[in-house]
């Protein structure tokens, strides 16, 4: 028996028959969604409340008189609004998200469930210490894992994200130098290939920044670095594995040279995923390194945060670590903060943030770490490096891979736009990949590679997915090399075509204005 017994066959509509425009602007499952300001009303609410009992007002004449202008939606409308919007996003749940240096790996849902246990999610940060011992134990256990995995001496848990962790690290360096009377050390040396946050952080903390040159092989130039060290240099900020996806083989020699010259070594740990369980930064002479829990330890990135950036410290910097932190005394966990720092922690550079840091990320990261264990985390590093090298070797005949000849890469593979014809560039390859159903790689970063394409597959991709991605990547690269003009206008199938970023910056519209308000303003 067949399902279609009538003999009817689907046919392709003729052009102009009904294929082009739709009445709604929707295309089947691709649904347009207006702004809440266009569909909601200030009278509508999706939350039921009891009547407010009448009572004494103590607002002292400050009662709000003017309308705020906040539209409301009923619950079904609100759920539909955000669900429709969500479908205009690419996400790791949908497919490979190979943003180099961003480590977009699978986010296990067990992490979400654990973070939502009322004992964690519904716990006030100023709960009396005896009534939140379990929370301090989570912080303490995670701290132990981080210190052990990195081979370092201590960890500051409170920084809110990677860049905040960088700030924590360089402030500890400043405090340690000041304690030695070395206020004159004001320069931090940063490689050109560093994340933009490195120089920005150094400046935010009052340092001046100078570039460290790179070698042809994409590594720090050790001799040039040594030549620049001196009594005005506070230290270096190095990313290892670096942003070209390469391990710095001279890392220990760099650390030794910096230490011998009286400086400290900060390591940007954004790429720790490549070496977790296989290499301990503590063995390489690092003094401080932040760890992005939303990269290596799988806490979800949420479209731009929250992150979490604990910082591990060497013994030399430990006395300067920020408050607060959790200490175990016997069976009891105590909170060391301003009041309890005492003489033992008198050198701490102080508090960086209200409360304790990103507890919701700690529960997720600890859940992930316990799931993988010491053996699983080592496998994480191995598979992430294996996947990246597989892409590197499957692509190097099509795209220029500037460091491929010098050996394997770590967790990410880098390509340049060399060899693309006149008029075609990295952005076209990226947008072409969108039409193939993939999120593009990191583009135009690091700055040391022309038209850089930095591809980080992570360890949570299957070989089948990698093979499909490689097929698509090769096809798009070959179309670009062949001068296929269609790729210049990609994406063709995304919810939006290329967006005019120049217009957005030239005439910024950062908030919605109702049509009558907008007219009145002009």
């Amino acid at each position, binding site marked *: 028996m067949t399902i279609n017994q009538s003999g009817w066959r689907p046919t392709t509509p003729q052009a102009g028959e009904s294929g082009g425009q739709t009445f709604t602007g929707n295309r089947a499952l691709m649904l347009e969604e207006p702004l809440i300001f266009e569909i909601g009303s200030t009278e509508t609410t999706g939350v039921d409340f009891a009547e407010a009992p009448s009572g004494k007002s103590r607002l002292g004449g*400050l009662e709000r008189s003017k309308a705020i202008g906040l539209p409301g939606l009923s619950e079904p409308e609100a759920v539909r609004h955000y669900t429709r919007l969500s479908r205009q996003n690419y996400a790791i749940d949908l497919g490979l998200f190979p943003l180099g240096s961003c480590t977009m790996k699978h986010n296990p849902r067990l992490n979400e469930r654990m973070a939502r246990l009322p004992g964690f999610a519904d716990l006030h940060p100023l709960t009396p210490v005896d009534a939140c011992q379990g929370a301090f134990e989570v912080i303490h256990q995670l701290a132990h894992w981080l210190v052990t995995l990195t081979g370092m001496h201590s960890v500051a848990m409170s920084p*809110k994200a990677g860049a905040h962790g960088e700030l924590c690290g360089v402030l500890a360096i400043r405090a340690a130098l000041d304690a030695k009377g070395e206020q004159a050390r004001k320069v931090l040396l940063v490689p050109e290939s560093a994340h933009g946050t490195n120089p920005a952080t150094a400046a935010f903390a009052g340092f001046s920044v100078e570039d460290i040159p790179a070698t042809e092989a994409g590594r720090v130039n050790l001799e040039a670095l040594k030549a620049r060290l001196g009594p005005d240099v506070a230290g270096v900020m190095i990313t290892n594995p670096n942003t070209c996806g390469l391990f710095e083989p001279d890392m220990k020699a760099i650390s030794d040279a910096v230490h011998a010259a009286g400086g400290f070594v900060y390591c940007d740990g954004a790429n720790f995923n490549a070496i977790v369980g296989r290499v301990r930064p503590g063995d390489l002479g690092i003094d401080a390194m932040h760890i992005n829990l939303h990269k290596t330890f799988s806490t979800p990135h949420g479209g731009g945060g929250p992150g979490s950036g604990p910082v591990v410290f060497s013994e030399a910097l430990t006395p300067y670590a920020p408050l607060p932190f959790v200490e175990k005394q016997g069976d009891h966990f105590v909170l060391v903060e301003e009041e309890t720092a005492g003489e033992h922690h008198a050198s701490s550079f102080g508090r960086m943030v209200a409360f304790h840091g990103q507890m919701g990320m700690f529960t997720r990261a600890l859940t992930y770490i316990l799931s993988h264990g010491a053996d699983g985390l080592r496998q994480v590093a191995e598979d992430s490096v294996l996947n990246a090298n597989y892409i590197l070797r499957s692509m190097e005949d099509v795209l220029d891979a500037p460091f491929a000849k010098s050996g394997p890469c770590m967790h990410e593979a880098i390509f340049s736009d060399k060899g693309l014809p006149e008029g075609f560039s990295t952005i076209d390859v990226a947008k072409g990949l969108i039409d193939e159903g993939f999120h593009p790689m990191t583009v135009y970063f690091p700055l040391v590679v022309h038209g850089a394409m930095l591809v980080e597959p992570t360890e949570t991709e299957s070989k089948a997915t990698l093979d499909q991605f490689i097929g698509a990547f090769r096809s798009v690269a070959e179309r670009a090399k062949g001068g296929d003009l269609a790729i210049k206008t990609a994406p063709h199938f995304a919810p939006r075509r290329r967006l005019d970023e120049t217009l957005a910056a030239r005439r910024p519209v950062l908030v919605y204005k109702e049509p009558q308000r907008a007219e009145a303003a002009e």
Partner: protein
Amino acid sequence: MRYLPLTQTDREAMLATIGAKSVDDLFVDVPAAGRLDGPIHGLPLHASELAVERHMSALAKKNLAAGDVPFFLGAGAYRHHVPASVDHLIQRGEFLTAYTPYQPEIAQGTLQVMFEFQTQVARLLGCDVANASMYDGSTACWEAITMARRVTKRGKAILSGGLHPHYVSVAKTMAKFTGDQLVTSLPTLSPEPDTLDLINAIDDGTSCVVVQYPDILGRIEDMSALAEACHAKKALLVAVVTEPVALGAIRSPGEMGADIVVGEGQSIGVGLQFGGPYVGLFACSEKLVRQMPGRLCGETVDAEGKRGFVLTLSTREQHIRREKATSNICTSSVLCALAMSAHMTLLGEAGLRRLAEINHVAASAAADRLAEVDGVELVTDRFFNEFTLKLSKEARPVVRALADKGILAGVSLGRLYPDAAELQNGLVVAVTETTTEEDVETLASALEEALA
């Protein structure tokens, strides 16, 4: 190892493609002295979901969750009911597992949420524009101080004694390194905030005055005169809001002349979470926008003329400007911003106003009831949903004793200001729509007993 899809066969095939004998060959750049030859000793090996769930649940049970007991803690983090749909929506994988929207054609969901959030926050705080979020209120507050320095080219900030002590502490830490001068003071157990002192302290070197509204003791005061005094000396007024629900009932700081309004958005949609992740709010007037820190989303059109959204004014930011950026912030708190935005959309203006009214009436009634207890004096006479009591004895041991009885009575000023002798009898009590009359009665009886 449930999160790793490669099979041993896959690994071997891939190594063959690469031309490596083993995965060790891929780590050749690591000097021998830096390599570990097996899993780190002394750490447990991988575990099942069930085993991990047992471990984490046991830890969670050691904590006294707010929902399980009469609960009156505030002081910068507030417990409100969050509709179930908010938590569902932020767990949509397309929001939860997306990255910063660097490829706008496939990130319109997050970008439109950012645009809506910026508009909601700007309107709530009474400003022209808001950014797409900061880490939290305390870091947003420091960013506002540095922004005022850039705008006024002056280095002295005057911080009100009513500003949350953790926020003051963060600013003090940072100022040690940047050379900013901070004028700080402690709050006093009085009904009036320190507005007059602040006005008198403003001089030609002042970059900004930072004032919290409602303040750490729960007090609210019109800041119009303070704003005028700031502007007369060409200084900026920075207002800090740690309980945004209040703005459903009271005038916004922007309306009263604040130039920069920052805040903690946690109380709308985000939850307590033991202090983080939260969501920093940052809003200001349009003319200051190019000095703002953080991500901004802006409206534009695509190649077919359809409306769309992109990250914009990036020339302020670290990935373009590096050491000349307005801030080093990169990842902020966009998922929490989504939670806050969705909760605000569910509330709408009518709902937010009703919620605020319920909070205020409940807090006012609770203040009256607690003031009836012998040994309790109500310090604050104008407040929103949080007020300060002066007890006849030190509040901190009372709070601890009540916690042992399963009552979370409030935040003692002794916890927040351990060195200030004159504040030790102060207790800050927050009352929201989640507080029941029975909770208030339980606290009143327990205080009666503790203070007898």
